[in-house]
Each structure stands twice: as C-alpha cells, then as structure tokens.
C-alpha cells in the first residue's frame, strides 16, 4: 500500500505546487530554472497520478507497478475485486489520454507549421537589410519564429517601419533564442493539457505562466547581445501598435505581461543566487526521478 499512497501524495503535492507556482514572482528572477521545475512538476504529476491508480490495482501481487504490469500481460491474470479492476482501468485510461493528447497536439502543431511554411514560401520575401529573415508584406506588427529543425524567423513589413535598427536587432536576438532553445517544445505539453482540461483554471494559469517564463528566458538571452533598453522599447512599441482591433478579449493579460517584461529589462533586480538556481534545478531532477522509482516499489 505504501507505493500507492506515496504516489497519490506525490501527485497531490505536484498539483498543489503547480497552483502555488502560478502566483509566485521569484520565478521571474530565474526563468530557466523555473521552467525546468514546471516541466518536472507536470511530468511527475502525470506519472504519479497514473502510478497511484496502477499501484493500488496491482498491489495484491506485491510486485510494484512495472513488474506488476509485466506479470499482468504475460500471465493474463486480472486483479481480484471490482475496485482494483476499476483502478486498473482508470489508470490505463488516464495514461492513454495523456499520451494521446500530447501526440495529437504534436501532430496538429506540425501540420499547422507545414501549412505556414508553405504559405511563407509563396508570399514571403527576403530583405537585404535583414539577412536570414523572411518578410511578409503587411502593415501590421508581427515578429515570430516558426520552429522546426530549420527554424525560420519572420517579421512583417509593419515591424520594419515600426522599429529602429537597434530595436529590430533586439527583437531578432529574442526570436533567435526561441529558435535555438526550442521553446515551442517546452510549451507543447502545457498547451496540450489545456485542450483536455479547458475549464481548469490551474491548467490555464500554468500554461500562461510557462509562456511568460519562456518569453523572459528569451529576453534574458537577447539582453546579453543587445542593450536591454532597446528590447524594452521594442516591446512597448509592439504592444501599442494595435494595427488590428482585437476580435475577442483574450488579450486581457497582455499589458500586464508586457510591463512585467519591460520592468525586468529596465530595472533588473538582484539576480537569484547561483546556489538557489542550482538548488531549484536539482530539486526538479529529484522530482522527475521520484515517480519512476516509486513505480518499481514492490509494496
């Protein structure tokens, strides 16, 4: 029973920590470490939830989750008792749903990107002033990255006229960080979870928190190469360049997030001590290994 209880407790701790993490602000001082912690929390929550159900279902055999599952498949025995069978079904169903959602999200994302790339190849042009960047002839302000094995940075004609040269360089450095660190892969599982649980506030907030942290991590990368103030003014110019009237009110947190990023760039607080940063990453690693280890615990 120990394994089942421990896994259930672990899942609860992860859910609670995730909920706490959506409020706290120290994460902004070390976005990369915080992102690692978020990933560990998400993964461990999934493994612990599935593991708790399976551990309870397979407990009478005293083999643990992994070996219990192997025993189940090789001997084709089902656990005795309706409750245990129910737990087994629920655990396997949850595992299937979580895996399927990530796979479907990945497939949809890849398809959307393929279409986007194809359209870009038809209508985007190269601009001698900004080598290696595709330009779309549109007056609106847009700058983004189409991630992939060969990531592509795209800006609009509107962006070219909106920003000064230094600001443009800052934006490109920011996008380059997204492309190089594959931030899209960080966001994918959280976005996928949002599709399954669209009504859950915690999942929505978690998604938004991670998205903001990813932007901050890219800002941090860019500030090493360009003056932070230029990146800040570029951010503000972008935020105010509402070339479109927004059709739906989903952009409510926009200004708050932009200001949070600007303030970080203009008035950087004391950096988090290295000790603490490594502590967070070590904690994340420990958390990630805890659930798989408990899957092996025989009792």
């Amino acid at each position, binding site marked *: 029973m120990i394994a089942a209880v421990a896994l259930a407790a672990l899942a609860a701790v992860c859910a609670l920590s995730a909920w706490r993490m959506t409020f706290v602000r120290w994460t902004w001082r070390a976005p990369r470490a915080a992102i690692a912690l978020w990933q560990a929390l998400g993964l461990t929550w999934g493994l612990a939830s599935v593991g708790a159900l399976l551990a309870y279902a397979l407990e009478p055999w005293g083999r643990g989750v992994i070996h219990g599952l192997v025993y189940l498949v090789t001997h084709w025995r089902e656990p005795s008792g309706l409750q245990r069978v129910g737990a087994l079904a629920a655990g396997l169903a949850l595992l299937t749903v979580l895996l399927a959602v990530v796979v479907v*999200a990945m497939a*949809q*994302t890849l398809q*959307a*990107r393929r279409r*986007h790339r*194809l*359209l*870009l190849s*038809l*209508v*985007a042009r190269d601009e001698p002033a900004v080598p290696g960047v595709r330009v*779309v*002839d*549109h007056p*609106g302000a*847009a*700058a*983004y*990255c189409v*991630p992939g094995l060969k990531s592509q940075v*795209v800006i*609009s004609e509107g962006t070219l006229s909106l920003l000064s040269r230094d600001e443009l360089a800052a*934006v490109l450095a*920011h*996008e380059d960080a*997204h*492309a190089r660190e594959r*931030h*899209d892969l960080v*966001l994918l599982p959280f*976005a996928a979870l*949002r599709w399954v649980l669209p009504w859950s506030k915690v999942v929505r907030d978690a998604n938004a928190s991670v998205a903001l942290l*990813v932007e901050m991590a*890219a800002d941090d990368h860019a500030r090493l190469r360009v003056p932070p*103030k230029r990146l*800040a*003014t570029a*951010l*503000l*110019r*972008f*935020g*105010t*360049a*509402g*070339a*479109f009237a*927004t*059709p*739906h009110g989903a*952009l409510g947190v*926009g*200004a708050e*997030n*932009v*200001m949070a*990023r*600007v303030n970080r760039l*203009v008035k950087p607080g004391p950096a988090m001590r290295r000790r603490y940063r490594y502590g967070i990453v070590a904690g994340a690693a420990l958390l990630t290994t805890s659930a798989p280890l408990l899957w092996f615990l025989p009792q």
Partner: protein
Amino acid sequence: MDVLWAEGGPLTAREVGRLIADRDLAPTTVMTVLDRLTRKGFLTRVRDGRAWRYEPAASRDAYIAELMLEALEMTGDRSAALTRFAQAVSGTEADVLRKALTELEEE
C-alpha cells in the same frame, strides 16, 4: 505563383515558362511545380485543348492575411505552433504602455 498573380488570368505551363524568362527552366520543371501547387490546392486548372490552364485559387493578399492571423494569434486557438515576440494590447491597456514608452525615451 508571382507570375500567375501578376497576370490575373489563367495561363498554360508554356506561358508561365516564357514569363519566367530570367531563369532558364526546363518546361517539365515548370509543369511539375504547377502540378504540385495544384495538388496542394493553391492553383486551380481547367482543360484547354491539350494543355491545362492554371489560375491561383486565392489572391496573394488572402494568403498574407492567413499568415498574419496566425502570427497575431487571432485564429482563436492559442496554439504552440509559433513563438511570438509580443502581443498588441487594446484600449486603455495600450495607454499604460504608451506612457511607459515615453518615459523610457525621455530618460
């Protein structure tokens, strides 16, 4: 595609090849490209005697609009397909940012 958009009427592969005169392309290459674009839905074609006449399925501006809708996250679903620099905000929120921008520039 640019040639077909500029022309504004359906063209045969031979005509397209002639219009891309600056690049020395084999007629079969032009035909292959046109055929692939048709299969992907970017061109429509009609029979004209022994040849096909090709025409863009949508205008250049329509594709640009589609790109920008995705780029500005206005398609409704917040997908993780693209990573964007920043979002534009509306109304009073923009005023807050405008004020901050003026302050920063005066420093």
